[in-house]
């Protein structure tokens, strides 16, 4: 266990995380009259994958038939796992909410004489959300990584504890409700903005008894120059070449995303792949610097012309960031199955709106905004109704990497990262899944997880790093268990040994558990425990 924190801060609502979902949750909770504390591992403004990006939000005007059509079009692509009512909810909430940022974000023209609201640039968006939240009275604590949840004796959530890294001391916050908005897990692939997205919130929640859903839908990659992950805007028209200058036969992106990724991954397994952007839209060549300056820097600083010179590319794993899985949403208020614990953004499953697919940028941002707003408001309502229980005794829920079951002899788990990455985002293991490959991955990941659970403990900032690795090992276990249990191919979950969809498995798949990982289809009573061959 981490060192006992000093006198805890008291709040109605505690938000854990510092990206767009966390900020929208904080703003909504404060707007509902709650006293809100937000703790982030890094800095609210630069943390997470939104800050380095430029999210477009799902934007459909409330005109007759228009939203219904948009929902039907997306529902047809969800492989049966999305929910029309949730889709309608995120369209409406996004439409109403985004313009409220006008005092903080410099919305500009849409090229047609109107205001462009739906797309926002990451650094300016996150800076605006920070200011908006501050003006609403939210207490923002940067550099306050959370390590574990605090629980009342009845199992409901009582707050969280962690390490304040600049002060070099423990912290604790007692709250009537907690919103987890800690992002997805990209397994430290190097994906831009995702270094801190190690699945911490998923581990904290499962330790408190929550379940996950859709973890098998975690196969997504982002194309970037091999030396520096960027946003993907410049590369959509790319041609690809091998080392000898032979053009590769790569199906186009978007329309056939899986074929595109598989062709690139296959070529990359053989050797370096070079991209050539001479075909890129003329307007992009002229305006990229003005639209997305950070995409140019990695080239200019190497003395390369992005649109003239061929350059090596790589696929950066996105795990559950652009993948879909996350904490199971148990009700209309984005509550998890743990009393007082809510989930938002990429830490929650996005299946409700995207099904077995990624959802693409627009749906994802609308989900992050809306689930944040809903979770924040619901958490505030609960906290204000139930009143303070700040003097009740609490227990610390953290275990893996915090409270070893055997001798504490491991304070650094970086040695396991490579095997965790190989099992989850290794090209062959992820894009061509099979029972055999998954079982092999499970053995490797199980061994890493057991070692951390039995022996892991560290102090200070090292405990944060150890806990991040504990979380990545845990997420890997749940991903592999779900991918093994979903004995079919559906959406981004592609099994070469079961290449087609099985109508009997058109149901969300839940996964959870620590010592024993379990899976259960939502439409079934039967829970299976995962057996790992020794």
């Amino acid at each position, binding site marked *: 266990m981490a060192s006992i924190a000093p006198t805890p801060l008291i709040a109605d609502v505690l938000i854990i995380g510092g990206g767009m979902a966390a900020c929208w949750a904080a703003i909504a909770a404060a707007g509902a009259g709650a006293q809100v504390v937000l703790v982030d591992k890094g800095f609210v403004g630069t943390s997470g994958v939104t800050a380095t990006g430029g999210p477009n939000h799902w934007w459909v005007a409330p005109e007759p038939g228009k939203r219904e059509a948009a929902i039907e079009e997306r529902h047809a692509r969800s492989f049966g796992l999305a929910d029309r009512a949730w889709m309608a909810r995120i369209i409406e909430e996004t439409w109403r909410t985004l313009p409220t940022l006008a005092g903080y974000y410099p919305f500009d023209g849409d090229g047609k004489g109107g205001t462009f609201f739906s797309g926002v640039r990451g650094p300016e968006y996150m800076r605006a959300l920070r200011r908006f939240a501050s003006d609403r009275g939210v207490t923002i604590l940067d550099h306050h990584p959370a390590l574990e949840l605090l629980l009342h004796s009845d199992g409901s959530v009582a707050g969280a504890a962690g390490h304040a890294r600049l002060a070099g001391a423990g912290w604790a916050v007692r709250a009537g409700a907690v919103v987890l908005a800690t992002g997805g897990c990209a397994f430290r692939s190097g994906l831009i903005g995702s270094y801190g997205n190690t699945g911490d919130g998923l581990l904290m929640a499962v330790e408190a008894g929550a379940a996950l859903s859709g973890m098998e839908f975690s196969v997504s990659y982002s194309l970037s120059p091999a030396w*520096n992950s960027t946003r993907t805007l410049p590369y959509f028209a790319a041609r690809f070449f091998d080392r000898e200058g032979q053009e590769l036969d790569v199906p186009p992106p978007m329309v056939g995303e899986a074929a595109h990724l598989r062709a690139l991954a296959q070529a990359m397994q053989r050797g370096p792949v070079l991209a050539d952007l001479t075909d890129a839209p003329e307007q992009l060549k002229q305006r990229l610097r003005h639209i997305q*300056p950070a995409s140019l820097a990695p080239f200019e*600083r190497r003395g390369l012309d992005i649109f003239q010179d061929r350059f090596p590319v790589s696929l950066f794993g996105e795990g559950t960031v652009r993948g879909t899985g996350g904490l199971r949403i148990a009700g209309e208020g984005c509550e998890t199955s743990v009393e007082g614990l809510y989930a938002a953004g990429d830490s929650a499953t996005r299946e409700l709106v995207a099904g077995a697919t990624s959802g693409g940028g627009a749906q994802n941002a609308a989900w992050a905004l809306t689930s944040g707003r809903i979770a924040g408001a619901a958490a505030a309502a609960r906290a204000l109704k139930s009143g303070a229980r700040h003097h009740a005794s609490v227990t610390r829920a953290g275990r893996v990497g915090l409270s070893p079951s055997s001798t504490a002899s491991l304070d650094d788990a970086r040695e396991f990262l490579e095997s965790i990455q190989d099992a989850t985002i290794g090209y062959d293991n992820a894009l061509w899944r099979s029972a055999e490959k998954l079982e092999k991955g499970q053995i490797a990941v199980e061994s890493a997880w057991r070692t951390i659970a039995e022996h892991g403990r560290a102090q200070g900032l090292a405990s944060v790093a150890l806990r991040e690795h504990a979380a990545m090992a845990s997420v890997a276990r749940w991903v592999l268990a779900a991918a093994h249990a979903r004995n079919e191919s559906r959406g981004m979950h592609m099994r070469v040994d079961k290449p087609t969809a099985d109508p009997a498995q058109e149901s969300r798949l839940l996964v959870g558990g620590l010592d024993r990982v379990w899976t259960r289809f939502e439409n079934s009573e039967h829970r299976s425990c995962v057996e790992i061959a020794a």
Partner: protein
Amino acid sequence: MIAHIFEDRCTGCNDCVAACPTHVLDLGEGGIPLVARIDQCQTCFMCELYCSADAIYVAPEQDDAGSVTAHAALAAGHVGRLRHDYGWDRAPPSGQGHLSDFWQLGPLLREGAEIAARRYAARARTRD
């Protein structure tokens, strides 16, 4: 990776220590921030954006801080360039915002994908 902190420009405000989301920088003695955990740098350039003195330079490689010398970075005009490109170093010109082209992101992305799709279809026809 963060490669250079120019001490002659640094004001010691330590905004970069706060802004770095991955704990790369620590408060240094005498005000100049200390690169304490370079292995945690994700090359996101956010420290440059938040450095109002343009005193930080991030080398373009995610796993190499040594590819560009301080002199070369300055000579190439790359120090402070990103913040300038974002427009964070100045008020926008009157009648035009720093984000006036941002609406084009989606259309240009789709146009790129369409170019790739048309080219692929043409190639497939040639093969048949």
